[in-house]
């Protein structure tokens, strides 16, 4: 039983797309920030003022 469950998992994982890319890591340096420093979510905006 366990074995066939394992098989199912194996088959499933084969059929799922290997598309999801890892998260993008951006070194923040001393860029200007707004909002709480310890906020759980960081949104980095690459901006062009014009």
């Amino acid at each position, binding site marked *: 039983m366990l074995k*066939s469950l394992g098989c199912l998992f194996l088959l499933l994982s084969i059929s799922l797309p290997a598309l999801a890319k890892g998260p993008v890591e951006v070194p923040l340096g001393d860029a200007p920030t707004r909002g709480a420093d310890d906020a759980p979510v960081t949104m980095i905006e690459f901006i062009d003022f014009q």
Partner: protein
Amino acid sequence: MKPDPRAYHRNWLNSHLLLWIGLLGLSGLLLSITSLRAQSPKQTLALPAPLSALELQGQSRIDLGQMLFFDRRLSGDGTMSCAVCHIPDQAFADGGELSLAYPTNKHWRNTPSLLNTAYLERFFWDGRAASLTVQAAGPLESPVEMNSKLPYLAAKLAETPEYQEAFQRAYAAEVNPELILAALAAFEQTLSVTDSPFERFLTGEEQALSAPARRGLELFFGARGGCSQCHSGPLLTDQKFYNLRVAETPTLQQDPQRRATRRYMLERQGLPMLPRDPGRYLVSKQLAEMGAFRTPPLHQIAQTGPYMHNGSLKTLAEVVAFFSRGGGDDAQRSTLLKVRNFTPVEQADLVTFLESLSGTVPEVHRPHLPGD
């Protein structure tokens, strides 16, 4: 076009032997495949032929097309490139319900993915273009998309030495509007995905599909599901037009800018303003095709949501549920739609099958552009 049953049997035998010799510990896998096969004779299903390889243009044309694809010079105000809505990391769609538009304007339809479009013969939701090159001219000149003019764009590129050279290299010619479109098409031809589990299954690799995906496939191509009435052929589309009566969204009906876009598209065809997206009627002016849209190809569909011409269905599960209830609520909808009342397991199997249509998306990066 079914795979040769003898080849299929041979493959099966090979894997059978290999598994017993090399992978005794995984006998359970073999058992499950055997039992699956017993339940579902593939021979009864009319499966499409696998996608054939496309003949590509020379590398210098592809490279030029890739430059153009990422270059924001191509839009009227220099803010948008093709890649803004056909985002390489998002399966060349954009993840939004409705397309991004030229600054301050708003779009009225969902962005289709570019993957495998080179195989198509009809482009846009209403099929108004018959080739990749005609398609490419659409967004470039549309006031709600890139809002440029091809002759002006050609002039601009002709005054950019690197482009001048690139066109010479690729076509031994001066920059002109036709070549801009041809180069974009040459690049788009490279955006194919042919290694999805489903494609591998079609070429005889039986194990490529999981048990739920196999069950989903049987529903999809069988009378119970009825999906392949329209989603047929190697691209899983007959490229014809059907009215599913997907509900129009409040934003499309109320937002003045989105309404303006609809009004403009209609007026361009000499038609009066209409209360909803006319679909194929815009092109054919046949009342029977009011609200009918081209059957979309399904490759890589799991990565290209939201779905339908107006992006009103967020997930594949919602799409399957929509078809399970027999489509939208309207007497004029296609008679091919039937209330099918799929069970929850059937719905999940269909979604799993649709997910098996995803393969490796070509990795494309912004190239060096003139002025970098």
